[in-house]
């Protein structure tokens, strides 16, 4: 049997399995010395070539994961932050990407080649330099209440001001603050926010602006959370309705939604909304804002269906 025929062995389905095994056996025992190498199209040579090419590029490191299809690409940015891009190859010209970056449209998207991915993400990483810097500062200096474990994927931060009030800030790709508002606002913070927003200086860091706006010397931390974020007692932030912190299937952590300063309980927006519309006889709320009484202190409360 000829070595060239090995292709036919695999690509011709006319053999039954025992026949195939027999033929392979004969091939290997009799012709073992003649077989140098053969191509079964199992290996994606193009991808391997690309990996070889990019692993010698500066600022880019490539690693294999559990299989040859799992590749990790580490892109270093201008100040040496390492951004990990996880790539999975579904076969030739079909690469899937996952990364803790804010650009979901680029992540849930298939790429044709490793080169595409490296070019796209090197550009993003360099474009987002200000964005990374601002978020990093917030995460270092403030008590971030939400997201629970902040990464660069989330473009917002909810910063602890006091037990009843958080500040919501979103960061644009250029590193500017947007959609700044209070969660569980009380009048005192609200007034400062109103006047402070007018004097917001986009040339300064977000953290500095927040400190100036609220006339704070530094950020305070909730008693249960030390700056190192070792949370022992999470009961402070449990939703009073479902008694949980995380709600399966719904994003968002419990928030101080009741504006009564004496109340001090937290709710998931979805739990509170569900209760308020249940009290109203399951009628849809006007403009998506349900109103009623706080389940805890029975003071008037309202709840937006969506988290703005």
């Amino acid at each position, binding site marked *: 049997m000829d070595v060239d025929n090995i292709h036919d062995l695999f690509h011709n389905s006319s053999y039954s399995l025992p026949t195939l095994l027999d033929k392979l056996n004969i091939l290997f025992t009799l012709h073992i010395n003649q077989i140098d190498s053969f191509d079964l199209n199992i290996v994606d040579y193009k991808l391997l070539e690309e990996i070889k090419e990019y692993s010698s590029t500066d600022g880019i490191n490539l690693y294999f994961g559990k299989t040859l299809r799992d590749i990790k690409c580490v892109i270093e940015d201008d100040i040496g932050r390492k951004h990990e891009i996880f790539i999975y190859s579904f076969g030739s010209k079909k690469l899937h990407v996952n990364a803790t970056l804010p650009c979901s449209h680029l992540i849930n998207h298939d790429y044709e080649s490793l080169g595409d991915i490296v070019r796209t993400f090197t550009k993003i990483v360099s474009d987002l330099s200000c964005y990374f810097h601002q978020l990093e500062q917030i995460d270092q200096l403030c008590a971030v209440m939400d997201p629970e474990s902040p990464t660069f994927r989330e473009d917002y931060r909810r910063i602890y001001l006091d037990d009843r009030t958080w500040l919501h800030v979103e960061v644009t790709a250029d590193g500017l603050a947007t959609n700044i508002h209070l969660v569980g606002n009380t009048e005192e913070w609200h007034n400062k926010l109103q006047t402070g927003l007018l004097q917001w200086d986009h040339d300064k860091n977000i953290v500095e602006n927040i400190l100036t706006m609220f006339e704070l010397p530094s950020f305070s931390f909730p008693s249960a959370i030390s700056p190192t974020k070792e949370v022992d007692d999470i009961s402070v932030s449990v939703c009073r309705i*479902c008694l949980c912190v995380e709600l399966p299937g719904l994003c968002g952590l419990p928030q101080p939604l009741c504006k009564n300063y004496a109340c001090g309980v937290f709710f998931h927006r979805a739990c509170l909304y569900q209760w308020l519309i249940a009290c109203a006889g399951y009628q849809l709320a006007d403009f998506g804002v349900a109103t009623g009484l706080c389940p805890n202190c029975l003071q008037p409360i309202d709840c937006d269906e969506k988290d703005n």
Partner: protein
Amino acid sequence: MAAMSPSERRLQKELMSLMKEPPPGVTVDGDQASQNLTLWTVHMEGVPGTLYEGEKFVLQFKFTNKYPFDSPEVTFVGNNIPVHPHVYSNGHICLSILTDDWSPALSVQSVCLSIVSMLSSCKEKKRPPDNSFYVKTCNKNPKKTKWWYHDDSV
């Protein structure tokens, strides 16, 4: 094990905290409740120094899958139903937080405490005035009763 529904998760947490730190005189049958999270049996002792001192009562809690948006169905069961102006001889309890004034911020523990305090503040052991009529005509589920709460003093 299948994923727990939000109501089961909440009941599980309540059960754990009630077993760990029960209010005085209150014990929950943890084995039974963990077998079936929607049906709990709670044992309650009359508070010393009140009319119910030395008595033992059994409460039954039934939960729907809408709990805590839906209030629990709470009744006294067993041989000893407390003789009290708000407790019918079939075990039904006339207590506003069990129906109209229910809130999801309440819990099994707070319901137990309300019932303990309702019993403890009683000055005369007697059945509600409409007891015999009510017991004959009522639905098995006390939540189907349109209660009107005559007084808040007991």
